[in-house]
């Protein structure tokens, strides 16, 4: 029997499938959720917490990712655990220690009942190749950023069915994209479900989504390869590594400006000053709180940023 395993942030989905379970990224329900959290710092974690505890998310167990990636998830995950959901805590090594990473993957595999289908590693590697090709397609102005973002963000759980997900990937339309400026989106994903569409409406072509790119960038065909790859998950390590990688991607993707999305009450918000000091690009910082459609205030910022990149000397 296949159990559904809720995941609160990136863990190797290939490992969950190899253990004959189905991952469900609990964040994917947040942008369209109507829940008004009872108590919260960050709405991302508070909404999935309440969705699970109020029965809105049908999961058999939960894997909580913390240790640099998301501090709030640790507490909200424990609240879920106390409500009776079998819960496992997964930590990334801040010092990139491969042995620690391997031990975390071993522990996760143990929680999931052990690896039973090694073929899934290779299957999902193949899908990630497709994801990377799709990512390159929008860099080459041959696919809409909103379509590519939707696909890449789903690589956290492959929508619970790798075969069906491959068909979804194959239907992403290829089209020539017209725009006024190329921008990168760094930080946690926006809690606004229409963010990319709104950016597009103002002529901003998002050619880099930092976090979803991590989802397709990391992988491996066995547990050891996964440990070597996932220990470099940028969000969980020192910010110097992120800065270096972002710089490379901004250059490679020929961006004109950077949008840094920050989530209210998220520790990653404090990184904004660091990015502004170390990235030599016009930067727009936008902050979201509760999930809802893009506000007029956000639209004003995106429109003004587009104008600045296009009109100003």
């Amino acid at each position, binding site marked *: 029997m296949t159990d559904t395993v809720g995941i609160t942030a990136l863990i190797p989905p290939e490992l969950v499938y190899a253990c004959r379970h189905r991952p469900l990224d609990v964040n994917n329900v947040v942008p369209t959720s109507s829940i008004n959290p009872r108590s919260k710092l960050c709405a991302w974690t508070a909404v999935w917490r309440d969705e699970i505890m109020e029965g809105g998310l049908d999961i058999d167990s939960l894997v909580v990712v913390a240790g640099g990636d998301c501090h709030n998830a640790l507490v909200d995950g424990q609240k879920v655990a106390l409500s009776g959901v079998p819960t496992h805590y997964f930590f990334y090594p801040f010092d990139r220690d491969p042995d620690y990473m391997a031990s975390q993957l071993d522990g996760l595999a143990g929680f999931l009942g052990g690896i039973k289908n090694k073929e899934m590693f290779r299957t999902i590697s193949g899908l990630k190749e497709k994801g990377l090709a799709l990512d390159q397609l929008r860099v080459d102005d041959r696919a809409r950023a909103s379509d590519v973002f939707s696909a890449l963000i789903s690589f956290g759980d492959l929508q619970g069915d790798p075969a069906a997900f491959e068909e979804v990937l194959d239907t992403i339309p290829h089209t020539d994209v017209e725009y006024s400026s190329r921008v990168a989106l760094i930080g946690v994903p926006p809690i606004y479900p229409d963010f990319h569409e709104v950016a597009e409406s103002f002529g901003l072509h998002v050619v880099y989504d930092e976090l979803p790119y991590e989802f397709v960038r990391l992988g491996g065909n066995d547990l050891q390869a996964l440990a070597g790859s996932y220990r470099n998950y940028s969000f969980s390590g020192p910010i110097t590594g992120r800065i270096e990688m972002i710089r490379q991607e901004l250059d490679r993707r020929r961006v004109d*400006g950077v949008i840094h999305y920050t989530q209210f009450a998220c520790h990653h918000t404090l990184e904004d000053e660091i990015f502004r000091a170390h990235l030599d690009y016009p930067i*727009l910082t936008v902050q979201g709180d509760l999930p809802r459609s893009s506000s007029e*205030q956000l639209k004003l*910022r995106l429109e*003004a*940023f587009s*104008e*600045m990149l296009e*009109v100003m000397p």
Partner: protein
Amino acid sequence: MNTGLDVGSTTAKIVRLESGIITASKVVPSHRWKELLEYGNKRDTIETIVSTGYFRRTVPHTAAITEITAASLGVRYYIPDAQVIVDVGGQDTKVIDLRNNTFLINDKCSAGTGAFLELAAHYFDIPVESLGKLHTRARRCALINNTCGVFAISEMISQLVGGYTMEEVICGIHQAFARRIAQMIPPVETLVLIGGTVLNTGIVESFESIHSSTVVVPPSPQTVNALGAALYGKKLRPEI
């Protein structure tokens, strides 16, 4: 003729340009913006209207631009080498750094917007336009913390109870206002202040007292964005 129409949350402004020269400008409350279209209009000339402000898309326009672009263009008309602009609006405040094309908008907290001053004036039951004059009569400034506009009223009352005069409390309000906005301002030698709020000399004085930058207020700071919109129209159609 190039017309700039800036219809903001509180006031509507118009600036008309002919051959790059300002021929008319006027300010009215926002709900009376239609009056502006008649003002200084020569019906026999070709007109380009560029709108800006909250209502930019709901008023007649040939093109619409955001207040950020309008402010940048308008300020450069007077101060070509301007670096940082602070545009204090009725409902938000914008800080624009022209050196690297970045901007910040505070619209989540009233403490750094014109609404904060309206609140203070309302408490004393005086017109908001009189705050600047009253500020000059203060012999000292009461300390008001720069946290939240609503809680600042409680602090004002505490300071009045403690023996400060209305004028001294107003001075404190202006300084709290400037401190709140200062958190958004990057290091810079010269700061350009625009927006109707900076017609209040108490505000300008407070910026000067708490900020190490030289503070510059261009002529007619309230209509700078309308001017910027008109200048954008001239960019679009240089022939008129």
